[in-house]
C-alpha cells in the first residue's frame, strides 16, 4: 500500500511512497494555504535554520489521487523513530523545536495547526520538523488549536519523566495522542502544584477539560479573544516550562555497566580493534547496535557506516549517549530506547500508524555485544529464536558470546537453577548456523568471550 498507514487524519494531504521513496501530496482543499505559506518565505526560513525538513516540488503526474494540488519530495529521514523510543533529552529537544517552529510561524502570520510529537524526527543528532503541511494562516484573536496536543504529547510526558519517573515516557506507546491530561495530572507528585507552569498547563488544563466536555466554546468565551501577544506569551511560557524541566541520568542498573565488564584494559583495546575490523569487513551502510549502553561501540561502527542506531533498554544510558551526540555535534548516531525482549510493535489504527522495529529493518549489520547472555539466560529466550530474530532484522552480525564461566553470566545464574544446558559455545554456534554463516570467530583476550562476524544465509548476495 503506497499511502502511509499513519497519514489519513488530515484532509489537506498525505504521505505516500513511490519507488521506495516518500512523497507528500498536497490536496486542492489546502492549495491556498500551502501557496501562501510558500510565498511567505516561512518554509525557506525554517529550512535555512535547520528546523524543517527540506522539500522539492515534483511533477503533479506523480500524484496518487485526483484531488492533488502539488507533490513534494521531502528529504529522506534515514531512520524513523517514535517518541516512546526517545530518551528524556530527545523528547525535550523535540518539544523545544516544536515551540520554536511555532514562534517562527507566528512571526510570519502563520500558526501550527497541530503539535504532534510524530511531526518530529531525528536526523544527524538533531530534531527536525517533518510535517510541511502543519501550517495555516494565523487568524487574529483565536487561541491555539494545538495547545491540548502539545501538552499531551510533550509537556505532560516530560513533567512526569522529570518529576515522577523517567519511565513514564513509555506511556506514550499506549497513548498515541499523548498522555491524557486528567490521567497524567493525577500521577504527578503533590508538590508539582507549586510550579506555576505545571499548575496552569497541566492541572488547571485537566480541570478545564473535565469541566467543559460538553461546552459550546463560542457561547462560553463570548466576546473574549486571545490577542496575538498573549498567544506568543503562552508559547513562550510553554517554552520556559519545558526548558526548566531536567532529568539527570544516574543510579540505574546499566548506566555504569560499560565500566564493569570483565575485560582488562588490553582486552578492551583488543575488542575495540576487533569490532572496528569486523564492521569494516561487513561494509555496512546502516548498523543497529542492540544493547549499545552509552554507545562506545556505536561510535566505532560509525567510522565505517553512514548511520548507527544505538539501542539500549536503560533510559540513563540512552540519555548519556544522546547528550554525547549533542555535545560533540556527532552525526549519524541515533540513540534510542528499546527493550529488545519486547521491541516496539506495529501500533495505531489497523496496526499501520507506527511501524514495528522489524518493519524498519533490516539493517545491513546488527551488533550485539555482551547481549546474548542477557537474552538467553536473563530472559530465557532459546538461542535458536535469538538467532531467528537477528536473521529477521539483519544482513550481517557482529555478535559476542559470553560463556557460563564468565563472572557476568555467573552472576545471572547465582540465585536460580541453571536450566540452560545448551548455553555453550558449541550450542551458540549450532543455533546461529541455521541462519548465518560464521565468517570469523576470535577469542577476546584471555576472557571467556568470543566475537563473531556472521553473514545471513537468506540474505547472502543481496
Amino acid at each position, binding site marked *: 500500500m503506497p499511502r502511509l498507514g499513519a497519514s489519513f487524519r488530515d484532509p489537506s494531504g498525505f504521505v505516500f511512497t513511490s519507488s521506495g521513496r516518500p512523497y507528500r501530496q498536497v490536496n486542492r482543499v489546502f492549495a491556498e494555504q500551502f501557496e501562501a505559506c510558500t510565498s511567505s518565505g516561512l518554509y525557506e526560513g525554517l529550512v535555512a535554520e535547520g528546523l524543517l525538513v527540506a522539500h522539492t516540488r515534483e511533477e503533479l503526474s506523480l500524484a496518487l489521487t485526483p484531488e492533488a494540488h502539488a507533490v513534494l519530495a521531502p528529504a529522506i529521514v534515514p531512520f524513523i523513530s517514535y517518541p516512546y523510543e526517545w530518551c528524556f533529552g530527545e523528547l525535550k529537544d523535540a518539544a523545544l523545536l516544536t515551540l520554536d517552529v511555532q514562534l517562527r510561524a507566528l512571526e510570519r502570520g502563520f500558526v501550527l495547526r497541530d503539535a504532534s510529537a510524530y511531526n518530529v524526527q531525528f536526523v544527524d543528532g538533531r530534531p527536525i520538523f517533518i510535517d510541511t503541511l502543519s501550517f495555516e494562516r494565523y487568524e487574529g484573536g483565536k487561541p491555539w*488549536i494545538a495547545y491540548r496536543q502539545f501538552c499531551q504529547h510533550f509537556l505532560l510526558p516530560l513533567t512526569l519523566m522529570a518529576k515522577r519517573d523517567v519511565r513514564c515516557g513509555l506511556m506514550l506507546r499506549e497513548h498515541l495522542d499523548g498522555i491524557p491530561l486528567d490521567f497524567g495530572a493525577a500521577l504527578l507528585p503533590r508538590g508539582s502544584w507549586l510550579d506555576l507552569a505545571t499548575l496552569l498547563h497541566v492541572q488547571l488544563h485537566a480541570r478545564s*477539560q473535565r469541566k467543559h*466536555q460538553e461546552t459550546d466554546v463560542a457561547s462560553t468565551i463570548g466576546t473574549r479573544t*486571545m490577542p496575538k501577544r498573549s*498567544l506568543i506569551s503562552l508559547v513562550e511560557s510553554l517554552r520556559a516550562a519545558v526548558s526548566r524541566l531536567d532529568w539527570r541520568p544516574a543510579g540505574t542498573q546499566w548506566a555504569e555497566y560499560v565500566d564493569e565488564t570483565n575485560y582488562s584494559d588490553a582486552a578492551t583495546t583488543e575488542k575495540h580493534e576487533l569490532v572496528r575490523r569486523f564492521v569494516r569487513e561487513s561494509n555496512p551502510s546502516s548498523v543497529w547496535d542492540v544493547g549499545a549502553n552509552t554507545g562506545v561501540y556505536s561510535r566505532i561502527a560509525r567510522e565505517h557506516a553512514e548511520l548507527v542506531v544505538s539501542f539500549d533498554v536503560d533510559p540513563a544510558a540512552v540519555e548519556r549517549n544522546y547528550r554525547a551526540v549533542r555535545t560533540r555535534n556527532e552525526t549519524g548516531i541515533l540513540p534510542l530506547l528499546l527493550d529488545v525482549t519486547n521491541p516496539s510493535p506495529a501500533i495505531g489504527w489497523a496496526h499501520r500508524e507506527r511501524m514495528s522495529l522489524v518493519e524498519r529493518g533490516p539493517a545491513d549489520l546488527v551488533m550485539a555485544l555482551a547481549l546474548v547472555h542477557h537474552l538467553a539466560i536473563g530472559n530465557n529466550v532459546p538461542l535458536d529464536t535469538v538467532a531467528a530474530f537477528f536473521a529477521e532484522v539483519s544482513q550481517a552480525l557482529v555478535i559476542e558470546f559470553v560463556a557460563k564461566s564468565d563472572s557476568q553470566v555467573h552472576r545471572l545464574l547465582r540465585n536460580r537453577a541453571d536450566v540452560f544446558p545448551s548455553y555453550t559455545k558449541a550450542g551458540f554456534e549450532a543455533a546461529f548456523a541455521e541462519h548465518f554463516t560464521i565468517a570469523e570467530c576470535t577469542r577476546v583476550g584471555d576472557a571467556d568471550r568470543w566475537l563473531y562476524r556472521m553473514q545471513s544465509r537468506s540474505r547472502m548476495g543481496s
Partner: protein
Amino acid sequence: MYIDPAAGSLVLQVLIAGVVSALAAMARVRRAVGSFFASLFGRRSS
C-alpha cells in the same frame, strides 16, 4: 481544523491569556535587568 482542540483547552487559553502575558512581561523585565547588571559586571572584569 482537523484535530480536536478540546473545548476546555480553548476556554483555558482565553482565561489565562492575561496571566501568561503578565508573566511574560515580568520575565522580560527580569532578563533586561539581569543583562544590564551582567553587562556592567562584564565591563568591569574585562
